[in-house]
């Protein structure tokens, strides 16, 4: 008999694997195909096995889940390559089964016979149990009616969970039970209880003595075994009790779950049974246990042991599949443990929920019972009440009509409240609108108004709906807008029938689909939210730190008022710019910090522990200080006297025209240096001397005091500081929230880049001009050359003409004679001009000269 999962046929070759059509995956399919091909192998391979031994072409390979294996049907077989098939049949298996299986008694005998004598007369078989007969009494025992449901049957309990005890009584037990224990009249121990006891014995022994079969006599006594039995709790008694307690189930009745077999419900508790029948039963069971082969009263399936691999034992069922162990890394380990923990959490949560549901059902049951009880009692009560004709106590007969609150209703309630508030807002807007409408109504005639108001009511309804639909969230602004559109329509569009049209003329009405659904948040809200979050964050952090500190540390920075720090700026940082300097802010130096234990006393002014210092830093005597309260400067208070450091700004109240009150402020501090610097420019001593020791009237122009006042007037508004006492030149830095140095550098670079740009532009312009000038010059030069040539030609012609004139006749009048020298002189003059001005002038002059000459010559001619 070929073994289903043996390796005999596990040598699947690649050509089979390659053919993916109709292939199946999974171990089931694999073993199925194994069985098939194994059979085939046995049939085909046996006669020719001797030939095949020579060259095994195929490696024995383990079946893996990842490989696809094909199932061959009988009619596929003839298409397969015969030779290949034969080769595939395990080469080293001569008999068709594995070597160790050949030892099987019957097969061994057959093999011996066949090897001894070649001709086999009588066929031998491996005996198999006769399965041909049917059990005649089947109908008597299995007669349950089962209605097949339309859906799948969902059930998560295993068969073992449902059938109660695993131990099954046989005839021997039956006789023992009826003769030894239940020998009295009424049965003391039921069969179910018997089975429960025996199965708990079994499991306990299996736990305590797993290798009992090696030495059956060493079996433990009942007393030794008892704790294990009770602990294992095979009927889950204690579990059920604790569950009942959790749920609030009355303890009298045992809990019966869906998984509990019907028979188990009547079984008494294990401890009770153990006390009463334990000894007697244990002896019976022990003797059976020891007598039986392999110390198993009932045959059991043989499973693979976790450690040892018994590949050779054919009786092991449910073998483990060999899976390649994945490489274990620390990361994977951590990941897996995380996952397991998460799963555990998940399941615990689910369990909690299930428990809650169970509790709810229990309460529901109690409630129903109570209700029934109340109902019955009311019946009785009513009867008596009528008999005694009592009029009172009617309220006891009626259920108070308070509808029990729904779970969703709780959520919806809030939403509805929100919606109601919004609707109210809409309503209010509408009513205000209608009041405006009334005003308009007075002006227009009645008919129109009636029409109008009707349509408006319609419109209002529409709008109400619309706004409720769309703008319930952002009703604030959106609805307002819409409502504004209405009065406008009312005042302008008195035509009535189509106010919507008119409205759309005046205001753009968005279709509902285009109104954005976004909730428009106000900046204030956002800011306050931000603020809140920041505060919360800080508080959370502080809470957390407090927790971390525990009782060990007392963190003095927890209190926002405490401790008091003496902050000192580094020498090179100027106080006025320090707050705006990112560099300086990290450089505050804390000289010392101290914690004042009674800060609240200080705040209330009830403390005695006050130290006061004078301006110079000398300590005042203790009793001397009058003010114990922390001083807060109130600039609007009259006769304000402050004892601590003065406020940096001074305020002054004055009344202007029409009794308008002004409050001026100015810085309350000056640099001591200012006077010293002034001293460089002004002679204060001289002023003093002049004013105080004046013997005669001082000339206005000589008066030093006047000079000072003039100077003061002149520079009155030229203060380098603004109202806050800051230098004006540093204001840009302050606005940009950077240090002055940075501002200066930035401004400088900005100026630099700006001026560079300008410079570049100017340079480019200059160059372009230069180039164009050069070009022009070249053109001009060429022109000049041409002209000069022309001029020379003309001159030559002139000279020739003159010579001709002079030679032809000397009858020329004075006027013409007086002119000629100037003409002749013209080239010289032009030469002179050439030196002083540009060449163009020269040209013109030449031209002029030429023209003049020609005209002259024509005149002369």
């Amino acid at each position, binding site marked *: 008999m070929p073994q289903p999962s043996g390796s005999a046929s596990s040598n699947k070759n690649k050509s089979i694997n390659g053919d993916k059509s109709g292939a199946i995956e999974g171990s089931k399919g694999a073993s199925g195909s194994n069985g098939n091909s194994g059979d085939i192998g046995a049939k085909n391979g046996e006669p020719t096995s001797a030939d095949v031994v020579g060259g095994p072409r195929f490696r024995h390979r383990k079946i893996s889940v990842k490989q696809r294996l094909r199932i061959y049907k009988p009619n596929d077989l003839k298409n397969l390559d015969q030779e290949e098939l034969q080769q595939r049949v395990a080469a080293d298996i001569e008999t068709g089964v594995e070597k160790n299986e050949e030892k099987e008694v019957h097969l061994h005998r057959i093999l011996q016979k066949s090897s001894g004598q070649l001709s086999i007369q009588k066929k031998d078989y491996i005996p198999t149990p006769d399965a041909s007969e049917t059990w005649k009494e089947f109908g008597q025992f299995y007669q349950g009616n089962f209605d097949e449901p339309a859906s799948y049957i969902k059930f998560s309990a295993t068969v073992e969970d449902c059938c109660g005890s695993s131990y099954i009584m046989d005839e021997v037990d039956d006789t023992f039970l009826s003769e030894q224990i239940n020998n009295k009249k009424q049965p003391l121990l039921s069969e179910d209880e018997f089975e429960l006891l025996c199965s708990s014995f079994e499991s306990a022994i299996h736990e305590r003595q797993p290798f009992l079969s090696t030495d059956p006599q060493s079996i433990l006594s009942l007393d030794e075994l008892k704790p294990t039995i009770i602990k294992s709790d095979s009927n889950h008694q204690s579990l059920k009790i604790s569950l009942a307690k959790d749920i609030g189930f009355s303890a009298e009745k045992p809990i019966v779950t869906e998984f509990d077999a019907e028979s188990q419900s009547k079984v008494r508790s294990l401890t009770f049974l153990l006390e009463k029948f334990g000894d007697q039963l244990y002896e019976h069971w022990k003797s059976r246990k020891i007598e039986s082969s392999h110390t198993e009263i009932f045959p059991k399936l043989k499973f693979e042991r976790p450690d040892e691999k018994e590949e050779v034992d054919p009786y092991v069922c449910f073998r483990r599949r060999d899976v390649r162990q994945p490489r274990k890394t620390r990361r994977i380990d951590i990941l897996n443990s995380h996952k397991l923990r998460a*799963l555990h959490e998940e399941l615990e949560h689910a369990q909690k929920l299930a428990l809650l549901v169970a509790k709810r059902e229990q309460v529901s049951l109690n409630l129903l019972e109570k209700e029934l009880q109340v109902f019955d009692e*009311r019946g009785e009560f009513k009867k008596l009440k009528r008999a005694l004709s009592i009029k009172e106590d009617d309220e*006891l007969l009626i259920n108070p009509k308070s509808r029990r609150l729904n779970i969703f209703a709780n959520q919806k309630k809030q939403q509805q409240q929100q919606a109601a508030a919004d609707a109210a807002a809409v309503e209010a807007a509408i009513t205000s609108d209608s009041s405006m409408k009334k005003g308009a109504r007075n002006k227009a005639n009645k008919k129109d108004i009636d029409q109008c108001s009707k349509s408006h009511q319609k419109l209002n309804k529409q709008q109400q709906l619309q706004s409720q639909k769309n703008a319930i969230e952002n009703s604030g602004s959106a609805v307002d807008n819409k409502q504004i559109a209405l009065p406008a329509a009312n005042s302008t569009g008195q035509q009535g029938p189509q106010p919507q049209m008119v409205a759309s003329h005046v205001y753009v009405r968005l279709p509902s689909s285009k109104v954005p659904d976004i909730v428009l948040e106000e900046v204030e809200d956002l800011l306050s939210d931000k603020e809140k979050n920041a505060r919360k964050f800080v508080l959370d952090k502080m809470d957390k730190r407090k927790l971390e500190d525990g009782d060990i540390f007392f963190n003095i920075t927890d209190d926002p008022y405490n401790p008091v720090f003496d902050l000192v700026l580094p020498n090179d940082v100027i106080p006025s710019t320090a707050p705006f300097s990112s560099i300086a802010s990290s450089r505050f130096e804390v000289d010392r910090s101290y914690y004042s234990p009674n800060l609240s006393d200080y705040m209330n002014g009830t403390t005695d522990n006050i130290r006061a210092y004078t301006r110079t830093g000398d300590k005042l005597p203790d009793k001397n200080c009058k003010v114990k309260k922390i001083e807060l400067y109130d600039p609007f208070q009259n006769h304000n006297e402050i004892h601590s450091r003065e406020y940096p700004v001074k305020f002054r109240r004055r009344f202007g025209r029409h009794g308008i009150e002004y409050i001026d402020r100015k810085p309350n501090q000056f640099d001591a240096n200012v006077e010293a610097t002034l001293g460089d420019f002004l002679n204060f001593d001289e002023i003093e001397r002049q004013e105080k020791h004046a013997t005669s009237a001082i000339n206005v122009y000589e008066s030093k005091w006047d000079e000072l006042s003039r100077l003061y007037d002149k520079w009155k508004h030229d203060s380098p500081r603004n109202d806050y006492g800051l230098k004006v030149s540093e204001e840009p830095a302050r606005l940009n929230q950077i240090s002055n140095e940075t501002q200066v550098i930035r401004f400088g670079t900005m100026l630099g880049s700006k001026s560079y740009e300008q410079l570049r532009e100017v340079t480019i312009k200059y160059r372009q001009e230069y180039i164009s000038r050069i070009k022009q010059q070249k053109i001009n030069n060429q022109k000049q050359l041409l002209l000069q040539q022309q001029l020379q030609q003309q001159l030559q012609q002139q000279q020739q003409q003159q010579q001709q004139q002079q030679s032809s006749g000397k009858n020329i009048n004075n006027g013409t004679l007086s002119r000629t020298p100037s003409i002749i002189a013209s080239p010289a003059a032009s030469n002179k001009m050439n030196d002083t001005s540009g060449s163009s002038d020269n040209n013109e002059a030449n031209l002029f000269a030429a023209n003049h000459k020609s005209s002259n010559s024509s005149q002369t001619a």
Partner: protein
Amino acid sequence: MEGNLKEYEKLKSELIKNIEAKKGLEEEFDRLQQDIYDNETEYLSGNQGTSKNNNIGNIIKGFDSFNKVSRHGSDLSNHGFTNDDRLFSLSSAVFVKQQLDDMQEQE
């Protein structure tokens, strides 16, 4: 007559006591139902506990993805749930009835 009156008083006090008890039970029932609903919401939305790896599944959806290596943000479907998933709440007939009543009321 006297005996009847006495019995009446006795019955009355009994009735009052039982009505009180019933009221208490009703309250407890409502509380439990709310409790279940809240817990369920928390459970199904998958933000319970401290576990960061929430997409291992739950007992409603199964733990199919338990063995899968999860990547960030790849499995968004795990976090949503519908009211049909509220197995625990829906297992109460009272709850279902309340929902139905509510729906009718709204229509």
